[in-house]
């Protein structure tokens, strides 16, 4: 932590692949909910924020070797991840939900049982479909769908594109984060939500276990708690997570 | 020596043949008839179009004007059966062009077996016979690179003979050879001539020409300047260019 102070710079890793969490805006700069949260953490530490964008695999492998200090990248804390990373503070929850093609005959979650559901490979959503989700600090949830086949693709976008081809063509439905599906719908994809959110996953700031720094972890936990308390986080969530009708979502609490 | 027999159904006839490489005219209005069993020797200074002429006969080169008939078939740009004509015309190159990845025997069997459809046994028998005729049956299992130049050239001759051609073309077959090897190749060719093969040879071996040729054709600048029997040609050349050429070559 002293190191960060003396450099006057907090290096924040985040995968720039996910609007509206963190992405590259039209001016070619980083922007998004995670980015705002990261900036705020740095501000409250009294240092400058600097973002770098290594791939998800690299961030989650641990052993950061002080290339960056924290990850503010919507990471779900799981048992296995906690072997290499510390999760000092959960800063919001994101709902995961199912969706199907607008022409799909399926109307209830149960309708997806035994069907072909598409999702991102090695994601929490896939673990949910497999019934093997092991989140830490997670709100309670139940497994509501037991698909017949799970099509897991490296890139979640491909699932959305496949669904677009028609109901039952390449899959019968998908599971993804609700904001992501929302974005696709707004972009004109012929899909609709199916049922309520399936589960809420907690998303946390992460630090490197290989370079254990309890002081840093404590500081982050303190800052996140303060940000929750003065509603900074809520404001940010309202700013970034908007529904089609213009209303906003506060994802800092699970319900 | 046979007597010349003009115009009685020639194997090869050229009728006003001209050929250009780009702007340069390599053959100029060539008229020529060659009969079965005739032995023709073509000579002339370098660049006079000798190679070009005989390469037109099996259409390794294309002529642009005039007509060439081989066994009655006209050679032209869009003919379907040039392969069949080529099978009837054996050709021996200055630098042998044996297939280096095949043994001597395989080189000789390739033609009969692959394009004439003769079965392997038969093709091998024929190949061995031809290798015996050129006197190197013992080299059958070697690769071309392991042979001397003279041996390679004799294999090339045997390879052509295996196709049982009606006519053999030779383009300076001895000029890439060490002198010790020239005579062994010439011996082979003389034997072949005596067996009655129709032959057209580009060569400067005047001894060979005297011994076997029915007719000697002298070319210069893409034209046939003179053609005659060897006796007449050597002893009584008609044109001045022939005289100059003979003076140079028979010093």
């Amino acid at each position, binding site marked *: 932590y002293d190191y960060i102070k003396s450099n006057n710079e907090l290096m924040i890793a985040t995968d720039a692949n996910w609007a509206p969490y963190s*992405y*590259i805006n039209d001016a*070619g700069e980083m922007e998004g909910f995670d980015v705002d949260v990261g900036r705020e953490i740095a501000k409250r530490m009294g240092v400058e924020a600097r973002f*770098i964008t290594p791939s998800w*695999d*690299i961030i989650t492998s641990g052993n950061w070797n002080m290339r960056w200090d924290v990850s503010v990248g919507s990471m779900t804390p799981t048992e296995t991840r906690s072997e290499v990373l510390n999760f000092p503070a959960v800063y919001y929850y994101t709902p995961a939900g199912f969706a199907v093609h607008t022409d799909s005959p399926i109307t209830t979650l149960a309708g997806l049982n035994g069907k072909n559901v598409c999702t991102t490979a090695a994601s929490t959503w896939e673990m949910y479909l497999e019934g093997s989700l092991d989140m830490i600090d997670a709100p309670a949830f139940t497994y509501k769908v037991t698909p017949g086949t799970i099509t897991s693709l490296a890139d979640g976008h491909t699932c*959305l*594109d496949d669904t677009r081809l028609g109901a039952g063509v390449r899959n019968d439905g998908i599971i993804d984060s609700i904001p992501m599906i929302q974005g696709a719908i707004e972009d004109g994809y012929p899909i609709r939500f199916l049922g309520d959110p399936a589960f809420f996953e907690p998303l946390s700031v992460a630090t490197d276990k290989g370079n254990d720094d309890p002081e840093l972890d404590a500081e982050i936990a303190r800052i996140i708690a303060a940000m929750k308390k003065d509603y900074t986080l809520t404001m940010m969530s309202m700013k970034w997570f908007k529904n089609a009708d213009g209303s906003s979502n506060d994802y800092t609490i699970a319900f | 020596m046979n007597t010349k027999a003009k115009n009685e159904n020639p194997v090869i006839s050229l009728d006003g043949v001209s050929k250009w490489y780009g702007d340069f005219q390599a053959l100029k209005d060539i008229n020529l008839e060659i009969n079965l069993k005739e032995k023709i020797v073509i000579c002339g200074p370098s660049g006079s179009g000798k190679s070009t002429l005989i390469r037109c006969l099996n259409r390794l*080169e294309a002529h642009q004007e005039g007509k060439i008939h081989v066994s009655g078939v006209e050679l032209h740009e869009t003919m379907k059966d040039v392969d069949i004509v080529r099978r009837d015309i054996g050709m021996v190159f200055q630098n042998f062009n044996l297939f280096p990845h095949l043994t001597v025997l395989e080189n000789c069997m390739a033609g009969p077996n692959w394009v004439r459809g003769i079965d392997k046994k038969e093709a091998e028998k024929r190949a061995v016979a031809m290798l015996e005729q050129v006197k190197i049956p013992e080299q059958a299992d070697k690769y071309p690179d392991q042979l001397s130049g003279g041996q390679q050239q004799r294999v090339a001759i045997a390879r052509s003979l295996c196709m049982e051609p009606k006519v053999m073309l030779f383009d300076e077959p001895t000029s890439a050879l060490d002198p010790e090897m020239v005579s062994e190749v010439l011996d082979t060719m003389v034997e072949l001539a005596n067996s009655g093969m129709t032959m057209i040879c580009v060569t400067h071996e005047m001894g060979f020409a005297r011994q076997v040729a029915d007719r000697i054709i002298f070319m210069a600048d893409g034209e046939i300047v003179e053609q005659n029997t060897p006796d007449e040609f050597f002893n009584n050349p008609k044109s001045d260019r022939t005289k100059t050429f003979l003076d140079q070559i028979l010093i």
Partner: protein
Amino acid sequence: MFVDTVIEDKSLHKPAFLLGLSITVLAFFFAFNFTNTIFGEFLSPVIGNPQESGFFGRLVVSFVLSIIFVLNLLLISFARLKIQIFIVWIELFFLFLAFAYSFDLELAYIFIGEPSKIWLMISKGLFTTIYISAVSIAIATAIAIVGAIAKLSNNGFAYAIASFYTSLFRGLPLLLQIYLIYMGLPQLGFMIDAIPSGIAALSLCYGAYMTEIFRAGIQSIPKGQWEASRALGFKFGLILRKIILPQSIPIIVPPTGNQFIAMLKDSSLVSVLGIWELMFMAKKIGSKDFNNLEMLLTAAMIYWALTIILEMIQARIERKYQQKA
């Protein structure tokens, strides 16, 4: 290749062939229904609403298409060779564009915004891509020469190290090499940044492939050239540089061109280290607005343009060295 003097006749100019061709093409266009494409719309004055035109519409569309196709072939076949090639290229290019267009792409997307998306990609990504590729290519070539010499030497250590190197770095996936260098070297006490890691991994991997190419090239030069050079008192390096390598260029260049082109695109793998190169920019910008494919295609066009430049350089080098041989 040495072309035969018996050219197949321009079969296109024979009526029977032309008729056959037309019928085949017609059948083809008929089998793959093109009624609902842009052609259908184009012909709507004749066939009415394409969607409802049914069998008659399909027939008309395919008939018109096949007429266009055959006429086109016929016209081109009368042109000179260079012009033929040029026209066919242009037509194929537009066909490709039409294919891409069939994805319902919002092509305007890449030009909107201030700065426009495409400018963003080029300004932030292209330079990095070219820089990383160029440096890696240079290093890989150097490695390849050393590697080829080692593989051809009769020194046990040199041979073993070089052959282990080519085997390992050709054998492991490039992505893993990037990970290992980026994450592994710090464990040994070398802190190495993202761009140097990327360049190191690309150079080592492509160096291994190119070692094999250079080895084959050097081996193809006859022994006599070595002997003559030695007899003149040339030292090893001089022989290699001035006598052997220049002669092996015609053999080395075509597969090396392949490697350069492949490296250009594989350089996008370093984006996993957070390097903002061309592909990274394309993916990240595109995924935000769900215009993935537009951006990917834009990136692809840029790669293609770079490839064509490399191909032209390659062709020029080949021509130069073929004249002398």
